[in-house]
């Protein structure tokens, strides 16, 4: 698994870790039931505080990607298709928000954007 952390990113480090692990789960590089590195060993390998890694694991657990068993470790949860879909929808929403922003700034009408959407989606059919 690759976890690339950069200080120049706008994203806080715990979120960079969270995203890297999600990506590894999506791509099946981390398989269902597989154990994640312990908080301290990942922190040591990334040369960051264990509190940062713990925060990333806590967030992943809260959103259902991993499960932590006290005293044992953290495991990849069974793949939840709804969860993956939700995640992807969120990503799409982000792009659409950008489209909205650009169209507002440049005074392009809703209908014109809709036309573009239609064109792209129908081309595929």
């Amino acid at each position, binding site marked *: 698994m690759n976890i690339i952390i950069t200080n120049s990113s706008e994203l*806080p480090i*715990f979120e960079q870790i969270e995203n890297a692990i999600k990506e590894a789960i999506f791509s099946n590089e981390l398989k269902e039931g597989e154990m994640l590195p312990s908080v*301290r060993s990942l922190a*040591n390998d990334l*040369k960051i505080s*264990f509190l940062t890694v713990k*925060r990333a694991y806590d967030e992943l657990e809260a959103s259902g990607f991993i499960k932590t068993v006290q005293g044992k470790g953290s495991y990849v949860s069974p793949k939840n298709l709804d969860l993956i879909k939700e995640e992807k929808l969120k990503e799409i929403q982000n792009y659409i928000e950008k489209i909205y922003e650009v169209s507002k700034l440049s005074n392009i009408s809703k209908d014109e954007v809709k036309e573009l959407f239609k064109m792209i989606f129908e081309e595929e059919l």
Partner: protein
Amino acid sequence: MNNIEIKNVSKKYDGFLLDKISFDVPSGAIVGLIGENGAGKTTTIKSILNIIKSDGTVKIFNKDVKQNEKEIKQDLGVVLDDSFLSTYLTPKYINSVMKDFYKNWDEEKYNDLLKQFGLPDNKLIKDFSSGMKMKLKIATAISHNPKLLILDEPTSGLDPVVRNEILDIFRKYIEEDETRSILLSSHITTDLEHISDYIIFIDKGKIVLNVPTDELLENYGIIKCSKEEFSKISEDDYISYKRSKYQYEVLTSDKSKIKKKYNIRAIDKPTIEEIMLFYIKGER
């Protein structure tokens, strides 16, 4: 669980006061003490170890240090700035002394560490470089598998390669058993940025800051702005500021709030050193 709890520790010297210092070192954590020379880092550490007599209470492993010193020290690894290893000894001889001193002395581990650190066991210490001497002190401090490691300035005066090797030794030590803790002081703040989970900043005998390192690095920010922009920022929203001819630099502990509230774009991620300088030299 905390491996160290200190409460209201005070010590008065001529012209210096360590003023009611309180903090904890949680189990599993690496805690870094930073501050200028003479700020009180070493006095704090020596008070914890009961090397100097001070007021207040110090508990290690939940036991009062003043009453249980002998017992506690069996589970403690210590490296002080002025720790002394006679220069006419060899690492091999140190082993034979320590064997008698510590119940848990692990000879095999010590010899492994010497090998791993590239330290010859039959050479006189006087012929060691300063990096080698520090590595030997650390090997000596951790070969009885202590639950807690306390080090005063373990990386000062060493080159970057050796400093990094030493930080790796600490990482390995804490990974071996995650109930262990390390308390270390340094004025090389970049070292602490990469190793410590909590930062405690001592200035003029007082604790001015005690926060998780990631909070310091993620939430604190240095705003760069004009005089006009600065005049709009409420006093509650910053810690201190520096003026120069062309700009104001302002330290905040909540940069995302500032970004939203004042619509300021230029906010830099600070280093621990910069934060320290804002506390010491900044205006308020």
